[in-house]
């Protein structure tokens, strides 16, 4: 119920932009079109329907297609090699694209940056907080949603859902964005359950279904009774955990239908907010901001509506935590040690949401069982 009200309010807030673009499908678009004849190229690293990262982008990017005068061209399965340079350049040269969205982390440097220098009249935007105003071209930029906030909510709810005090986390690779999600689950869980631990298994690959299933089984066998993950496509992890009768926390997109019994909630991107803002700006003839990142406060991330696995206490605690995040309250608060005992945040200091410190996280917080190397 509370979720519904929040959604309503959000809808009203962003309503003008959304309906103007015809996303809601009701109001016709009237004003003069500055975006007339604009071709936008979008590049994906995997298939557009991967039940995860790429799909989250592709679904939201539909918002751009509904802007009159805008043509969207898309290419999927583009590896992070010079193939992506050539793909983007091909979009510019052969399709006449004037705006490129590069949605995978490894596209940025050197590929997108070099191309932005080569084509100064084309705008480039990249889905990770990497753009540096001091050294990167001004026709490039970043947009990003801080999914770790969604994982923090996951942790808050998960801490109250585990009986064994062990939350299992199937992770792809030990990079900052994954580590910060693991830490967020840990910090959230610790808030509601001081005895909670998070056990991590790194699979070493972004998509490796058999090993993801094995990792899930290994975590359940090791006593974890709540499972979450950060891999490209969480379907296998959630499905396997459900079949083992444990509770689950989602990642990237909604996995609620996959776990009718044990699903608690999930961290989800809300790229639609960003792409809608872009579409709105474009249709008014404005220029896109170079840097657009946010979390709960800006409605760039959300949590999946609570599933059958969520207890009333967990829902209450998670809702309270959401309110904190909307108020931009920090949860990286000192004193905080990493899991080797080294102090990473001194007592009395904290790192607010969007602190660049979060983008550089290279440790596992105290209570996490696992190691980076």
């Amino acid at each position: 119920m509370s979720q519904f009200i929040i959604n309503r309010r959000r809808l009203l807030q962003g309503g003008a932009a959304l309906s103007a673009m015809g996303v809601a499908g009701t109001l016709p678009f009237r004003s003069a079109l500055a975006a007339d004849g604009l071709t936008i190229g979008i590049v994906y690293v995997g298939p557009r329907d991967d039940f995860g990262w790429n799909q989250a982008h592709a679904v939201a990017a539909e918002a751009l297609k509904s802007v009159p005068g805008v043509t969207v061209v898309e290419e999927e399965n583009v590896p992070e090699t010079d193939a992506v340079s050539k793909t983007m350049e091909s979009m510019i040269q052969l399709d006449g694209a004037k705006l490129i969205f590069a949605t995978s982390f490894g596209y940025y440097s050197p590929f997108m940056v070099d191309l932005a220098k080569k084509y100064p009249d084309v705008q480039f935007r990249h889905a990770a907080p990497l753009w540096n105003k001091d050294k990167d071209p001004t026709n490039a930029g970043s947009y990003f949603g801080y999914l770790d906030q969604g994982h923090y909510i996951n942790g808050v709810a998960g801490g109250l859902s585990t009986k064994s005090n062990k939350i299992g986390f199937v992770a792809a690779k030990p990079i900052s964005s994954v580590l910060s999600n693991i830490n967020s689950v840990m910090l959230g869980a610790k808030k509601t359950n001081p005895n909670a631990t998070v056990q991590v298994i790194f699979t070493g690959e972004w998509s490796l279904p058999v090993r993801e299933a094995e990792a899930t089984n290994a975590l359940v066998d090791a006593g974890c009774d709540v499972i979450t993950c950060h891999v490209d496509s969480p379907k296998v992890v959630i499905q396997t955990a459900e079949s083992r009768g444990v509770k689950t926390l989602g990642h990237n997109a909604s996995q609620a239908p996959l776990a009718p019994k044990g699903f608690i909630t999930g961290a989800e991107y809300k790229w639609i907010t960003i792409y809608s803002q872009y579409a709105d700006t474009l249709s008014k003839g404005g220029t896109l901001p170079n840097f657009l990142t946010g979390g709960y406060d800006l409605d760039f991330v959300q949590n999946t509506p609570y599933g059958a696995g969520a207890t009333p206490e967990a829902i209450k605690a998670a809702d309270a935590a959401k309110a904190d995040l909307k108020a931009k309250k920090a949860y990286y608060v000192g004193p905080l040690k990493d899991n080797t005992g080294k102090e990473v945040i001194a007592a009395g200091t904290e790192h607010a949401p969007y602190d660049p410190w979060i983008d550089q996280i290279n440790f596992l917080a105290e209570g996490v069982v696992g190691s980076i190397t």
Partner: protein
Amino acid sequence: MSTDTKMAMAAPSDVGGDWTRRIGRSLEAVVIPLIAVLIAAALFSIFLLMLGKSPIQFFALLWQGGFGTAFSWQNTLTRAAPLIFTALCVAVPARLGMVIIGGEGALVLGGFCAAAIAIPFIGWGSPFLVMPLMLIAAALAGAVWIGFVGVLRHYRGVNETIASLLLYYIAVAIMNFFVEGALRDPANPNKPSTKTIGDSLMVGDIPGIGVHWGLAVGVGLAVALWVLMNRTKFGFAARITGGNVRAARAQGLPVGRLIVTSCAIAGASAGLAGYFEVAAIQGKANASIAAGYGFTGILVAFLAKQNPLAIIPVSIFLGGIAAAGGLIQRRMGMPDATVSVLMGLMFVVLLVSDTLQGKLGLTGKAGGR
């Protein structure tokens, strides 16, 4: 069957002196694949029509995206460059009757070693010294890796196909272990990589065509290896060994040395592909250098009938299809796999067309067998 395989793989030496037959054979070598490509195109057109898509638009885009503009050529050649190296990694051992499918492993290790050896020199080392060092490290790493496959094959009797495949997985594990561990650059927290080697150590583009020097080196290497395999004693001995190991032994040929050397040359070639991935494209070693060129190279080599010279046009042909694939996706709204379907179909038909060799009446004597 087995004799056919052997003949296809060992490419029987061209002893025919009769020039009309030679011309006929060259003509066949062009006409048959051409017919095969047309048949594959026709089959694929039916597939497209069944899906309600226009074959005319498809092939027009294929041409435009692969070969139709100056940029398309640049795109095509860029994609062809690594394939030349990795295909050579398959073709050279194939002359000895070996099927090496783990060239990707040598590529990965070669690229990794090139990046790793540059680390102490970043920022101060003279490019004239460090660049050759990187190149040698990459070639050496690849040579040792696939050379080891040759050693296992000759001295332990371990099948080279399976050994090279297993070693690919191990090579990736080795690279990931270091790239995400001891050699990880702390400045790159979200994409585990070695330190960036810096602009001074990067390989530039060939002036005028905008494709990195790897293409020129690849073409040069292909020509050199063709000469080695077709015009030298080494190549002759290798072909005899490929044709019949027992005969080769009976003639006193150093079979073991031939096998290991060929494998090492093959590995060095794949290692160089890794070098250019690092030094011309990524600027560092990370998981992205394992982009599958090693596996596509197998296909190139088989289509080129393991002939190093034929590898050059086949690589360009494949590069062109890959380059156009993107345009087709974008304009026709078809999934990425469309190009794989086309390529797969084309290769099956092309390989089937081998059966027509000597049957077109172009060699003067139909049905030579």
